[in-house]
């Protein structure tokens, strides 16, 4: 369509997708999650953000930041900054990847929080009148603060007590549910993106080779796909957890390695179709190297259905982690939505707040990704567009 003022297909798809209310809702929810994950130490922390002790101002919150907290903050601001720098997308992506690696390494070596964490220290000191003034985070409880100083370390319904407010109640150990949920957003997002990223990387390479070369490579590749499709992810995860203990990274890797087959199928089908397209033949005919044919000419034109699949994949990875945690095989002490659901049904009583809030978060997140996936599919589908034209 000449003269529409649209520069590229990508911009057109994004514009089309953004007109969909589902996408707006989904993006808003994911944005909230991202912000919660990045700024978790500022939102929920037993350590005061700022305090003044006999005229001396300090920030215990900063002192207790972990390497993970610092990396997330730095990466987040680097990403925001890069968005506004006018360079080519490919360079942006490269800079971003390098920034992530450097930040993770640097913070790992240089950010050393105190070994011993005593959450009640500041509350005790404040009660003893040691401070001039104290600024707490909106939710003055860390996710692993089991409120041992309060005496009653048990379950409490939301807003049931007046002297200490727990908006979403407390869990079995007495930890604040909202605080734990905020920190759990990190795991949910992380496992979704990393696991899907691994799956996509493997799927694109294997599927691309199958589709482009077809023949024998295709036959071997498809058998590989079938083998991996026959592996039940959840049982593999259970086995690995049983043998090697609980690790978030292992979960990401296993979910990624077992779920690439769908992406490989998509890319294979796209490449089989694209290989017959005349612009690909033209690229081959003019002697372009294989790398260029595959990654400059075919992949950008075949990646669209993959994005749709990926947004559903993120949702299912989050669910897989939640299921694992619900079964009690997730991370031990770190907060996770699934694990909180597990707490809700552990004893004979049903604690509704432990089910409703984390369950709602899982539902909304999966729903948001599905909405976005569906809208993306509509936006890239030329047939639907033709109907409207």
């Amino acid at each position, binding site marked *: 369509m000449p003269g529409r003022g649209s520069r590229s*297909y990508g911009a057109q798809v994004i514009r089309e997708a953004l007109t969909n209310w589902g996408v707006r809702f989904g993006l808003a929810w994911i944005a909230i999650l991202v912000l919660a994950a990045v700024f978790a130490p500022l939102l929920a922390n037993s350590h005061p953000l700022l305090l003044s002790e006999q005229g001396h101002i300090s920030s215990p919150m900063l002192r207790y930041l972990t390497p993970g907290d610092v990396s997330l903050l730095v990466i987040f601001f680097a990403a925001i900054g890069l968005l506004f720098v006018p360079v080519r997308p490919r360079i942006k992506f490269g800079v971003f990847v390098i920034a992530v690696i450097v930040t993770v390494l640097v913070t790992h070596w240089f950010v050393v929080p105190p070994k011993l964490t005593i959450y009640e220290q500041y509350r005790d000191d404040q009660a003893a009148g040691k401070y001039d003034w104290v600024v707490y985070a909106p939710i003055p409880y860390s996710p692993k603060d089991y409120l041992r100083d309060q005496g009653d370390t048990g379950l409490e319904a939301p807003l049931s007590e007046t002297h200490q407010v727990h908006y979403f109640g407390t869990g079995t150990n007495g930890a604040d549910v909202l605080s734990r949920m905020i920190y759990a957003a990190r795991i949910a997002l992380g496992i979704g993106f990393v696991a899907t990223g691994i799956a996509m990387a493997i799927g694109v390479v294997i599927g691309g080779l199958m589709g482009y070369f077809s023949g024998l490579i295709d036959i071997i590749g498809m058998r590989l796909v079938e083998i991996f499709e026959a592996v039940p992810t959840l049982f593999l995860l259970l086995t690995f957890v049983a043998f090697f203990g609980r690790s978030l990274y292992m979960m990401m890797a296993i979910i990624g390695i077992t779920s690439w087959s769908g992406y490989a199928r998509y890319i294979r089908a796209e490449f089989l179709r694209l290989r017959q397209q005349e612009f690909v033949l033209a690229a081959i*005919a*003019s*002697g*372009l190297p294989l790398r260029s044919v595959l990654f400059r000419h075919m992949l950008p034109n075949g990646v669209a259905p993959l994005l749709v699949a990926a947004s559903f994949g993120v949702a299912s990875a989050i669910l897989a982690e939640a299921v694992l945690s619900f079964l009690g095989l997730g991370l031990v002490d770190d907060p996770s939505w699934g694990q909180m659901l597990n707490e809700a049904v552990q004893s004979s009583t049903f604690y509704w707040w432990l089910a409703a809030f984390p369950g709602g978060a899982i539902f909304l997140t999966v729903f948001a990704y599905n909405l976005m996936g569906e809208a993306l599919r509509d936006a890239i589908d030329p047939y639907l567009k033709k109907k409207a*034209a």
Partner: protein
Amino acid sequence: MLLRVDNLHTHLRSGGQIVKAVDGVSFHIDRGETFCLVGESGSGKSISALSVMRLLPRDISSHPAGRILFDYRHDNGSTEQVDMLTLPEERARHVRGSRITMIFQEPMNSLNPVFTIGDQIVEALQVHHPDIDYAEARERAIAALVQVQIPSAAERFNEYPHRLSGGQRQRVMIAMAMVGEPDLLIADEPTTALDVTVQAEILRLMRDLQERRGTSILFITHDFGVVAQMARRLAVMRRGQIVETGSVDDVFHHPQHDYTRQLIAALPENLTRARRLSMTETAPKPTPSPPAPTLLDLRKLEIYFPIRKGILRHTVGYVRAVDGIDLQIPRGQILALVGESGCGKTTLGRAVLRLIPPTGGAIYFDGHDLTRLGRAKMQPFRREIQFVFQDPMASLNPRMTIAGTLTEPMAVHGIGENKDDRLERARQALTQVQLDPDWVWRYPHEFSGGQRQRICIARALVLDPRFIICDEITSALDVSVQAEILQILLQLRRERDLTLLFITHNIAVVEYLSDEMAVMYNGKIVERGVTAKVCSSPSDPYTQRLLSAVPRVAL
């Protein structure tokens, strides 16, 4: 008067915009007459027909003005004039299907693949004549199939559409449209997707049926040759408006409107005639030059595709797409390879560039056997031999700017010193194909089909090739655009001493463009020689059949 369209306006909503697809069209069709709507793509001729049928989706189309008056014949024989635009949907549905029927361009898509052809005809009949029982409907369906000359119609009644060829499917479509004995048949480019010999049969069939039944036909086409065969009156459409109406003779020989004149002048037949006239005036005859050395030499070239069956995929036979072809193209010549779909001409073209591996034989280019070269040794020839593809919509990478498309091959072949130099060459190439050089930063979707095809030619030119294979490069284009592309090719040949292999099914284009022609049939070359000679006195029976089937404009 059977149908009178009065000042019809059809607006289509696309995104937030209103497109005036039909903008004040008026015409009429008498009983028993064939009326042609002629126009290039996007001129609104199909939308006009769909408006008459009321087949446009209500939510995106509107008719701000106009009337479509149709002489509705009641079952008891009395007639009543109805306005199709204001008719209630219930009655409009009855009119459409029993009094007005339609056949479409793409026979491959217009039959439902999960029902037998017989059932589809019976259904079309029974929907509008519920009083007919199945046995009678079946009788009439078979009679209709006989009428459209489907061989052994009674047995074919239970065939599924995939068992029929394109031409046979179009016959079934016609049978389905005619079985209810409509008063008006709308044919929207019914032969465009068919081979020229099949087209000739279908056109003859439609003329016969019309004579016998007295059905009126609204015939929509872009092909003036077909118009000349089918109609006595025609209307030329452009941008939603009728620019000229009249009898076929008048419009062809004394076109009144500039646009009609341009269209008729752009017909390849007329291009040939115009050149012949100018040649006889200026240069009497080019002195026969000594025979040029052969540039491309195909020797016993064979390309077989294995037919595999069973779970073990063992080969049970071969499709002989190219079956032992010898062909020489001298330097600086344009050789046209002519044939109908499925004759192997595209396979042959692609094999020269090793896009398809040959089964046997040799391809000598300038003395080197391309079939024996490895990937690295082949590389210089990928520069010297270029390919322009048929579908301009599919042959440019939609995610790449024109600059990227043009400069990437240059970088690979080491043409140009740096990026800026290559970009400059890309701009020059665009100028050569008569496009604005500043368009290098655009994406393919911003161009029309003709512009894209020029970009494809520019992509071939930037590598400074000696030989270009053009595979049906004008068949997806409108006739005026086709004329421009052909002229660009001829000019480039003069300037750059190019050799062309021009693959096409369009005889008129061959006559205009090529020095020699080779006719291909079932993977073999049946006749080859100087174009003018082959066209005027073909010796092979297939060539004779092909040439006689070409619809010509009597000029």
